[in-house]
């Protein structure tokens, strides 16, 4: 009897039900919500500005209102962590959107048309994949300048291969199915078939892998900014706040300058990974038993 109930639900409802049952995924979603709220509204609540320097307070530890102390130029760390969250999350989301668009377009072309187009696109994927991500990003950022916009674009431009491969594989198997033949018989052209029939059917993996791509984009931004090739100061991001820790003195003596942004990256990426994993389990029909 119970089985009937489940069968009556739409796939999205079933997915939602499975997702809610996954404790880690729900925990991730809550954590992510808190972090996002903090990044969006937090800066409005602190009495300091991100660039405001209090010379007397340089390298001072946590005290009074300044829960996380000051950095080497006397700026309030908590304020910068909250501002940095905005930038880091924005870079993650925009970069992932760029990557998803490229990945879906190229992946569907490769999967649907096959032949030479598939060959060229897949070779391109091979080239980008066989190359260390980070190094292209570093060189590109050195070439075009370490701005927020460039960082978003660069990370997006090299991070699309996973999505392209997934979309291609899904479309390859989908296009063999009868409803595609049927719509062709009904007179739909290729673009319409891709748009109306194929893309909606590959939405689930796109959502899953986009989520996971946000996590990797945030990590790449952090790494690039850490070595000074991502977003450059004074704009705060979690990654470039960690750049302070390239000095051994800071590592040893001023933990409040680098541990908080590091932990923020960790918790953000962890919660995104939890959510992504939960989505995969919830949406992947292959796991349905």
């Amino acid at each position, binding site marked *: *009897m*119970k*089985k009937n109930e489940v069968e009556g639900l739409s796939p999205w409802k079933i997915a939602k039900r499975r997702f809610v049952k996954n404790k880690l995924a729900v925990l991730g979603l809550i954590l992510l919500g808190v972090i996002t709220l903090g990044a969006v509204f937090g800066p409005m609540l602190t009495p300091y500005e991100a660039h405001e320097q209090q010379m007397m307070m340089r390298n001072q530890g946590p005290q009074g209102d300044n829960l996380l102390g000051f950095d080497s130029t006397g700026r309030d760390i908590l304020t910068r962590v909250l501002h940095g969250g905005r930038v880091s999350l924005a870079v993650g989301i925009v970069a992932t959107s760029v990557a998803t668009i490229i990945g879906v377009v190229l992946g569907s072309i490769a999967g649907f048309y096959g032949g030479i187009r598939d060959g060229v696109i897949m070779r391109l994927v091979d080239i980008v994949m066989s190359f260390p991500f980070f190094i292209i990003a570093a060189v590109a950022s050195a070439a075009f300048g370490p701005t927020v916009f460039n960082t978003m674009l660069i990370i997006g431009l090299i991070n699309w291969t996973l999505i392209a491969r997934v979309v291609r594989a899904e479309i390859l198997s989908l296009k063999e199915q009868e409803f595609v033949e049927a719509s062709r018989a009904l007179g739909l052209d290729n673009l319409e078939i891709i748009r109306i029939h194929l893309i909606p059917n590959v939405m689930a993996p796109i959502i899953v892998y986009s989520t996971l791509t946000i996590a990797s984009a945030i990590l790449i931004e952090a790494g690039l900014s850490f070595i000074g090739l991502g977003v450059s100061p004074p704009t705060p991001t979690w990654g470039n706040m960690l750049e302070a820790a390239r000095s051994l003195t800071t590592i040893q003596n001023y933990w409040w300058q680098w541990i908080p942004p590091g932990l923020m990256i960790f918790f953000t990426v962890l919660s995104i990974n939890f959510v992504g994993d939960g989505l995969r389990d919830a949406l992947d029909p292959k796991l349905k*038993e």
Partner: protein
Amino acid sequence: MEDITLKAQGIKTSFQTSEGKVVAVNDVDITIREGKILGVVGESGCGKTVTALSIMRLVPEPNGKIEEGRIEFMGKNLLELSSEEMRKLRGAEISMIFQEPMTALNPVFSIGYQMKEMLKLHRGMTDEQATERAIELIDMVGIPRAEKVIKEYPHQLSGGMRQRVMIAMALSCDPKFMIADEPTTALDVTIQAQVLELMKDLNEKMGTAIMFITHDLGVIAEMADDVVVMYAGKVVEESNAISLFHEPKHPYTMGLLRSRPDMLEEGEELQSIKGMVPSLLRMPEGCPFNPRCEHRMDICVKEMPQLIEVKPGHKTRCWLYDDKGGK
């Protein structure tokens, strides 16, 4: 009284699923006479395979569980053996071949390796002895160029060849008893006949008792000495092959016979059994066959009939033959 190779009594095996517990095999008795072939027939989902896996004690854990029963083999109750004792019997005294020859062999090991592994394990052979024996066995199941084949990998062989390899492997340690779970279903018709013939041949030559599972009555007619008909986890009819084909008792068995053109007597009409096998989750009350039965009576929807002997050696589970059923 003939010698009995294996006698299973009251086997009950259940599975835990997301929708609750399902009893796949319920109170099943199986008796296999020495050196004979027992055919087990029924539609898919009737519990044939689970019965076989229960005898092998290979019911997938942790969801599957043999709840009750007793399986007597070589003077021991298999269900009481430790898993290590059971493992030593498997392959050596009881072996099994499966439906899908394409996936039953490990793709990354050579045929020879997969055969020799057993011989070394159960018979303590050296590598050379095992190689020699493997070649002999491959040869015995009618595969040419045996020396070459043992160096090959499963993907290099056809389905029929692979099933022959499986048979050779299953018989390699001279087991007393072998289970064949739909061994020819996945094969082409012509190959099917060859493989059946081979099995019949080996059964006679080596005296290995076989439990032959199939949904195909034609195969049963060709192979089996005794037959068990299963429906929805229960044995519904049990007899020797001749009696079963000439005087089927249970309406389900009759239905099965009427749905096969080659089984019809002259003047009879080809028919299929109406309806579908009930889901194990939604078993009807009473006799599980009642929704599809053309002889349904009031009692059929209320109470499960017992397996009763209608004539010597021929049992059936149907109210038509029971005093309580009104006849």
